[in-house]
Structures are given as structure tokens and as C-alpha cells.
């Protein structure tokens, strides 16, 4: 068994874990991050992509709203390249009590959320597809946030500060010496090899899976995973984040992100965060709620549905109520379970990931007996140094001066052959889903119908795969894609799916491939 020595071991490669790794590394701590799959494969990569202004929590959860206000401003400074500055609107539809608007305004003012009531005509001018019967509208600094870019930006920054990131490494065991956690045994999921990571302190940032990790050390953290489903609609039905102006509920947010718009979400308790079934009634609920925001929503083309697992922390001990903020949970197992060397950070939301990382690393530093200030709010992420928000048209603008001068492999997302080859070389992966998360490959209307055969051929060449490994990459991608498309096939997307059947099963015959 190979061995690694480190000061901080971070478990989990979502926004929180990557943020913890970056924070720890920036404080000069030796850091290793392990993630059982790919970065942002879990909850972070499955959320709607809303950078909260705080408006959504202004009435229901003022503490969370205040955190969002601060972190929104920080992320706009340090992670501009991950953000599209869409702005946000809260609108009272005919189904909402427009008196709530006053409560909402008060809540925003009390929590510091920048808010301005705009006239209905102005709101409809900004977003012509909105329901014409809206009675009030409020503008807030919501934005859309690319979760993969955010996590990769944090991971790259962590690496630049000396951290080591081990992807596809699952924690088999946490090791203890008496009451002290001394590290973990992790297994490379691709090769089966085990690595023993000795660490002075372990930060459990496994989110909805944090309970499973804590249990390995004999700690007890009760997580109630909450399933939230989201549907990506083809095109940008709106160009501003649109929220219903009412107490937060299901299906009341529409987020324009990249080439799509995402409607979300639900919240229902599930036993296992790895087993998130999407039901027809949940889909219908999203579509019906979408219809209230944007009439004709059901006739628009739905691309894909998926579910993420929120990590809802359930306080069980007296210490918990003291330690746990309203919006996230930091658990120092020294005090709580008499287990040293283990800190759990869970709950929360992607908008406040940086803050969560900060408090977790503060707690880790306290265990290590060092006192070094957090700097993650000061230094921009790699790629965001210019402070420029990304724009929807950036990829097209880059292509336009010389159309057809480069081969476009994924037409939906304008991914060139060169960009794809570079990403494959950089990621050195045999998994096309990793490339999807890196470049948005296959995430447009054809859902990989055209680009995935091409990407397989290119992967075969770039990674010098044998046919069998390339086949596995192709078949695994198609199966994974099917999970997200089959529950929501209708209209033009049904036509697309059947065309894809003709391409993959008819023209290519992939079901007969040896793998």
C-alpha cells in the first residue's frame, strides 16, 4: 500500500471540498483532497446554477440571506469567470399574493440584499416571455454560476498552492489511533490500488455523504439527504434569473445558464443520496410551475432532468445547536464525539461554499494549533484575474471572425477539436462524462447525438485507447445520458432521441460492440 503524508486531508470534491483544499493550501498547509468520482460529480454539479443574491432567503432565513449577500459580492470579485451577471427578478404571478412583495422588500432591506421594485412594463420589457399577468417585480443581484468552472477553479488554485487532488479515490476506511483520527485508506477506483494517507487533521466535506464518512471514524453525523429535481430547457427562455415572489417552494426558480435554462427545484427526503429517482409527478409539477412563470413552457423543448441531494444536517446533540449556524453545519468532533483530528462541514449551499471552507479550515487550524488568516476572499481564482464575467456569446464571438476555420466537434456548445483534444490531454481520462463536465460536451439539444461518436474517435486517438476501452467510454456515456433523458421525452426532444436511436443503434450498431 502506497503512503502519503499530509497535514490536511479533505474528503469530497464538491464546491465545499475544493474550497477547503484551496483555503488550506493558501494558508500554507500541506493538503490532499480525495474524491470518489470526478470533481463536482455530486450535489454541486447537479444544482440549478443560481448565485444567490440572498433574496430567496430574505424572509424565510435572514441569517442565510446575510451570508449570501456577503458571499455573492466576494464571488463576483474572485470568481468572475464562473459567473454570468444575469441579474435576478422576483415576480408576483397571478398565483402569488402580491402583498408578499412588501414583506419581501422589508426582508431584503433588513438583510442587506440590494433590491429595487421595477414596474411591470419594465419587467416585461426585460423578460418578454414572463407571464403577462405579473403584478409586481423586484430586481436583485442574482446571477448564474457555472458549478464545474467554480470547482475546477478552486482545485487549480489549490494545486498552484501545493495541494494534491486525487480523483476517483474512494475512502475505504478512516484510521484511528485511540481517540485520534490519523488519516484514511483510499482506493483508486480505476486501478483498484490502495493509498494510505496520513493526516494531522481530516476535513469531512462529503456533503450529503458526510454521515457515511463520519461513521467510518465512529462519529455520528445525521444527514437527511433532500432530493431536488431540475429540468434543463433548451434555449434561454429567460435571460435573467426569475424567482416567484413568495415563500420559497417547489419549482419557483428559472435560471438561465450557458445555453439552457434550468427550472428547479423540489425538496423531498431520501434515504440514500446515491439513489435519486425522478418521478413523473415531480416532472409534471416542474412543468406546471414553469407554465406560471413562462406561458407555453410545456411546449418548449425539455432536454434533460436530473436530481441532486442536498445535505440537510439534523442536529441531535446539545452541542449541535450551538455549533450549527442556520445555513451550514460545522462539527468539531473533538468536543462533540471526543474524536480528535476530524472536522465535518456540511449543509449550506454553493453560494456560501467559500465561507463554509473558511470556517472548516479555521477549525482545522485550531486542531493543528496554528493561527493563519484566510485569504480566499482576496485572491481571484485562476482564470478570473481579469474580473470579467463570462457572457453567453463568448464562444461564438471567438469563432465568428473566421467561421469554419476550426472544426466544431460539438455544434450545440461550440466546442472545437483543438479545445476537446486539449481537455482530453489535460484530464487524461478514459471517461467522456469527465469531458462533459469540463467542456459541457454533449449538453445541448442533441444530447451528444452528433458529438459523442466524434469524441469517442478523438479520445481513441488522443489517449491511444484500444477499441474496447473506447467502446466502454461510448457506451457508458450513452447509458448515463439515457438516465437523464428518458423520463422527459416528448415534443421535439422525443424526435431527437429517436434520431439518436437511429444513429447509435441503427447506423453505428453500438449495441453490438465488444466491450
Amino acid at each position, binding site marked *: 500500500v502506497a503512503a502519503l503524508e499530509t497535514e490536511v486531508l479533505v474528503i469530497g470534491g464538491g464546491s465545499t471540498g475544493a474550497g477547503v483544499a484551496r483555503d488550506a493550501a493558501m494558508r500554507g498547509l500541506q493538503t490532499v483532497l480525495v474524491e470518489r468520482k470526478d470533481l463536482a460529480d455530486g450535489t454541486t454539479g447537479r444544482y440549478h446554477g443560481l448565485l444567490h443574491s440572498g433574496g430567496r432567503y430574505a424572509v424565510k432565513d435572514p441569517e442565510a440571506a446575510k451570508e449570501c449577500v456577503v458571499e455573492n459580492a466576494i464571488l463576483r470579485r474572485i470568481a468572475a469567470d464562473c459567473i454570468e451577471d444575469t441579474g435576478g427578478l422576483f415576480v408576483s404571478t397571478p398565483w402569488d399574493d402580491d402583498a408578499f412583495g412588501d414583506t419581501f422588500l422589508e426582508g431584503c432591506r433588513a438583510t442587506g440584499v440590494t433590491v429595487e421594485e421595477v414596474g411591470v412594463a419594465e419587467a416585461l420589457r426585460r423578460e418578454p416571455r414572463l407571464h403577462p399577468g405579473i403584478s409586481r417585480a423586484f430586481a436583485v443581484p442574482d446571477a448564474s454560476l457555472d458549478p464545474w468552472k467554480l470547482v475546477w477553479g478552486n482545485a487549480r488554485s489549490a494545486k498552484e498552492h501545493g495541494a494534491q487532488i486525487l480523483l476517483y479515490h474512494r475512502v475505504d476506511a478512516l484510521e484511528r489511533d485511540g481517540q485520534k483520527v490519523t488519516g484514511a485508506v483510499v482506493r483508486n477506483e480505476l486501478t483498484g490500488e490502495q493509498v494510505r494517507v496520513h493526516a494531522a487533521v481530516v476535513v469531512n466535506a462529503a456533503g450529503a455523504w458526510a454521515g457515511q464518512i463520519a461513521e467510518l471514524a465512529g462519529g455520528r453525523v445525521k444527514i437527511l439527504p433532500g432530493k431536488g429535481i431540475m429540468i434543463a430547457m433548451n434555449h434561454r427562455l429567460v435571460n435573467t434569473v426569475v424567482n416567484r415572489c413568495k415563500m420559497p417552494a417547489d419549482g419557483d426558480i428559472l435560471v438561465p445558464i450557458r445555453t439552457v435554462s434550468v427550472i428547479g427545484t423540489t425538496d423531498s427526503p431520501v434515504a440514500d443520496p446515491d439513489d435519486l429517482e425522478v418521478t413523473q409527478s415531480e416532472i409534471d409539477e416542474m412543468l406546471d410551475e414553469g407554465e406560471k412563470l413562462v406561458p407555453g413552457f410545456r411546449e418548449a423543448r425539455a432536454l434533460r432532468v436530473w436530481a441532486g441531494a442536498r445535505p440537510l444536517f439534523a442536529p441531535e446533540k446539545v452541542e449541535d445547536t450551538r455549533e450549527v449556524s442556520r445555513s451550514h453545519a460545522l462539527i468539531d468532533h473533538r468536543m462533540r464525539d471526543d474524536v480528535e483530528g476530524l472536522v465535518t462541514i456540511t449543509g449550506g449551499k454553493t453560494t456560501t461554499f467559500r465561507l463554509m471552507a473558511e470556517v472548516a479550515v479555521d477549525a482545522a487550524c485550531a486542531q493543528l494549533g496554528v493561527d493563519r488568516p484566510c485569504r480566499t476572499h482576496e485572491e481571484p481564482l485562476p482564470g478570473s484575474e481579469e474580473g470579467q464575467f463570462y457572457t453567453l456569446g463568448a464562444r461564438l464571438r471567438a469563432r465568428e471572425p473566421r467561421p469554419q476555420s476550426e472544426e466544431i466537434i460539438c455544434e450545440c456548445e461550440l466546442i472545437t477539436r483543438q479545445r476537446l483534444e486539449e481537455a482530453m490531454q489535460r484530464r487524461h481520462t478514459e471517461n467522456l462524462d469527465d469531458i462533459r463536465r469540463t467542456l459541457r460536451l454533449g449538453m445541448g439539444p442533441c444530447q451528444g447525438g*452528433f458529438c459523442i461518436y466524434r469524441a469517442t474517435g478523438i479520445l481513441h486517438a488522443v489517449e491511444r485507447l484500444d477499441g474496447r476501452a473506447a467502446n466502454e467510454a461510448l457506451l457508458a456515456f450513452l447509458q448515463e445520458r*439515457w438516465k437523464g433523458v428518458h423520463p422527459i*421525452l416528448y415534443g421535439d426532444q422525443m424526435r431527437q432521441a429517436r434520431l439518436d436511436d*437511429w444513429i447509435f*443503434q441503427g447506423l*453505428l*450498431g453500438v449495441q453490438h460492440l465488444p466491450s
Partner: protein
Amino acid sequence: MTYDAVVIGAGLAGLTAALRLADEGRRVLVVARGVGSTHLAPATIDVLGFAGERVERPAEALPTFVDSHPGHPYARLSVEHFAAGIEWFKARLPGLGYRGGLEENVLLPTAVGVAKPSAVVPETMAAGDLRAGGRFVFVGLGLKDFYPAYLADNLGQAGASARAIELTPPRGAQTDVSSVGFARRFEQPAFRDAVVRELAGHTEPDERIGFPAVLGLERVGEVWRELEARLERQVFEVPTLPPSVSGIRLFEAMTAALRRAGGRILLGQSVVGAETGNGRIEGVVAQAAARPTTYRAPSFVLATGGLAAGGIHVDSYGKIRETVFDLALAGLPGANGRPPFLPTYFVEQPLDRLGVPVDDQLRPTDIDGRPLFENLHAAGATLAGAVPWREASGNGLSLATGYAAAGAILENMS
């Protein structure tokens, strides 16, 4: 203008029905929203490639197949009829040099290197037959829709002798060249010279050379024969992603033949409804650019395709309807609580055999098998009971049922 028959849909099924009717002296109108699925699929006539096992001899396999699949459109056809349709098709499109028949399937490599059974294939693809063994070399042109090394690897795994060569023929100022772009370039002598020069000395005399199916459009026969002569090797095409160059050739050949035979083709018109009376279709209403137009005739052929082509539509409530006549459908999910799809992609899905049920004259029926309209016939992917993309029966189904629908109309007329 009066017509003897109106055909709705310009895919292979509709064009086959129309051409056969026109050949018999009937005045035919084809009205369609656009070009059909010819542009999406290879031009091979796959009759039956997989029926559980891979099918080697379709003529032998068909009787057993229809016995075990009584709801399949093939159960409405006789093998003799099938064979007649194929012979007619081969003779009718001499420019594409179709070869083969129902007796045995050839095995052509797909673009990922799977051996796919086809009954009748264009001459430009015939030398790709893997059954004879031998050595193959696959040539890449830098076309983003063709990866010969990957293809050859998989064929090698399956025991064939195959390798790949990548060429970099001149593309001109444009880098992002599509299949159609390469097909046009192959029609230019200078481009062929460059390809032949670059390949010279890199292949062995006993190797057969496979190109992506982009060897020209109108002049494909000429291009293919010239390459065989100059390379002194057998040359063949491998179909790849849409747009399908070989399918475009088929569409062009069919429509040219149809026009020569006096048929009329109107594209860009969606048929959105019908006028009916006395158990007959009196006319169909097409949404043209300016205003709705009604086309009347004694006979109609519905060949609008299935879910892919839009002949059948599913809305967000899961309601499924045939889009022109709102015909009864067979193979609907939910009837016995089945979901339309299973979580596993690579299996037959509950919705896959969805379509219009027909009688022996290919007339759409109600669920009890009674024809809905005396003078309406249906053909192609609209029909219930087939899974052509899994059976490898796509163009075979369209050709055979288009031919049979025309046959039924001719019989009624006489």
C-alpha cells in the same frame, strides 16, 4: 390539377409508392414538410439484419420472423411481393448500381466497426462485405464524422484484418468540412488527384480500401470507378453520421425518376388535416406558405414517418397522436401500466413498436383491425410493430411497404 393519388411524406416509403404509381401511369402528387429521412440514414436496403440472432438469409428467415411477430408490418407482405419490390427498385435506379437481394445479407462495417447485415447495397459499398475475409484498409480524410483507426481496432477485435491510414487532402480555406463538403470536393479532379497521390504506395494489392461515404453526389459512380481504376484496388464506402451523402443520392435519384415519370413533388408543406366522408378521405389540407390548400384524390398514402420524422407526436402530458389523420395507434405505453421507457438504454423500449396498425392492404385500422378509411394506405416508419433501428430493417421496411401500398392502390383502381 387532379391526381390519382396523393402521397404524404418524401422519405423512401413515400417516394417508392409515388414512383411505382407514376410508373403505372398514375398522376401522383407527393406533398411533404421537407426532405425525408433519406438524408439521415445510409442508402443500404436493410431488410432484416437481426432477429434475436444475426440474420444471414432474409428470405429464409422472414416466414419464421413474421410467425413470431404477427404485429410486424412484414406480416402483411408476402416474400414474393418483397422480392418483386426489390427487383423493381434495383432496375428503377440503375445509376446507383444496387446489388444483392433477399437471398443473403452482406455484412458491411459501420463507422465504429460493427458488422451490419444489409440485403441490397449500392455498388459503391459492396466491396466492404466482411464475409469474404481478406484485408481492409480504412482511409480517413480528416472528416470529423469518421474515425478509421477506431473502426479498424474494433474490426480487428472481431478477427478481421483491418488498419487505418489518415490522409490530409487539401480542404481549401475552409477547415470545418462536412460530409457533403467532401462529397463535392470528390467531384473535382484535382481533389481526387491529391487523394490518389497521397495514398499511392501505402496499400497492398490485396487490400480493399474503405472511405467514408462521401465519394461524390451526382457523379458518385464515376468517382468510385475512377478511384478503383487508379488505385488498382477494390474501393468501398462506409456510411457515417448524418447528413447521409448516400441517402441524399438516393433521394435525388428517386425524385428525378419520379419527375421524369410525371409525378409532382411539393416540399415545404405540412399536411395538417383531412376532409373525410363516407368512410373515405376526400382531400388533405396542407399548410402552404400563403394559405391552406386542399389536395383531392381517389387514393392517399400516409408516409410521414414515426416519432423521429414527426409523423407521430408526443406532448408533455404523454399524449400521443398521429399528426395528419389522428389515426388509432398500436403499441401505446400505459395501456398495461408500462412506462414508455426503461432505465437501460441498450434494450428494446416499451414504446419502440408504436405506430399505425394496418390491414393486409396496408390500410390503417382501428384497434379491432377494421380499416378506418377505404382509400388510405400507410407505409414506412409510421407503421406499428417494427423496431427498424434494432432489427436493421429500416429502408427495407420503407421500400417493401411503399411498394405494397402502391400495389394495393393499383389493384383497387383496376
